[in-house]
């Protein structure tokens, strides 16, 4: 009788252990990250010119894009066609610029350069077909009027880096 009682009570005592939860945790991570590694700086090699070219005293902007999942995103880079802040300018500014693939974490990413699409003229789009990191270099040049000096002051222009889900 005592044995039976012991078996029944041990069964009752072990039953709650069967209900222990075993949660599975997960975290949704971003599949595309834009890293602003180097802000560009304009050099002023000529009185009427601002240029991010290192030979002109400037620094090109460097932007890294990390793609965690291949073929999910495309990236676009818009180089400036106006100043976001500057002294008052009385003449027109002629803008030019480009975006090129710099370092890559996967060798095959070098093909992005040949496959890039430029449309409109200041927007360059890359199809991110591989997972990994790609560094993009954005350059910008502003030429002011004809034989005119740019007024003294601080000039700021904006680059837009975009990651768009496909």
């Amino acid at each position: 009788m005592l044995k039976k009682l012991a078996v029944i009570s041990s069964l009752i005592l072990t039953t709650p252990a069967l209900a222990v939860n075993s949660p599975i945790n997960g975290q949704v991570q971003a599949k595309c990250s834009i890293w602003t590694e180097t802000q560009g700086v304009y050099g002023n090699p000529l009185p009427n010119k601002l240029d991010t070219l290192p030979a002109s005293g400037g620094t090109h902007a460097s932007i890294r894009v990390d793609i965690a999942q291949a073929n999910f995103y495309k990236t676009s880079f818009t180089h400036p066609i106006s100043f976001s802040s500057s002294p008052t300018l009385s003449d027109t500014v002629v803008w030019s610029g480009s975006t090129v693939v710099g370092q890559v974490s996967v060798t095959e990413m070098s093909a992005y350069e040949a496959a890039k699409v430029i449309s409109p003229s200041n927007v360059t789009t890359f199809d991110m077909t591989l997972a990994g990191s790609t560094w993009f270099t954005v350059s910008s040049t502003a030429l002011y009027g004809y034989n005119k000096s740019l007024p003294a002051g601080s000039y700021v222009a904006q680059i837009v880096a975009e990651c768009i889900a496909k």
Partner: protein
Amino acid sequence: MHCKVKLLLSVVFVFWASFGFAHEMTPAYPKFVTSYIDDVSVTKMKLFNRRDDVSYYKIEVWDNNWEPVPFASTNKIIKIGHNKSVSFDVYVQTKDLKYVVYICTISKNFKEDQKVTVIASRICSKID
């Protein structure tokens, strides 16, 4: 040797991924569900700011031709600290749902903070 290089590259990659100035948003392919308001649908997004030069992001909703679609959110411009994440809801009238293609966040910069060429970052999720 090859394995050691791979390991080193992984460590460097993790190091780079941990320190820097990044803008991230999830999910990549959000889905709208019925909200508690009649004829209004909602989706939840999460923004992560690792840019120490940016504290504000603007929410945008676009159609397939990059035309804006009317939407509501608690704040259309989100204030967010460095290395912080913020969840936000995007509400769209159910009748406009068929037009919604992209939900984006774009960094906003203060003019007085700008001393060099500024990089604005925009991340767009696509409606699944």
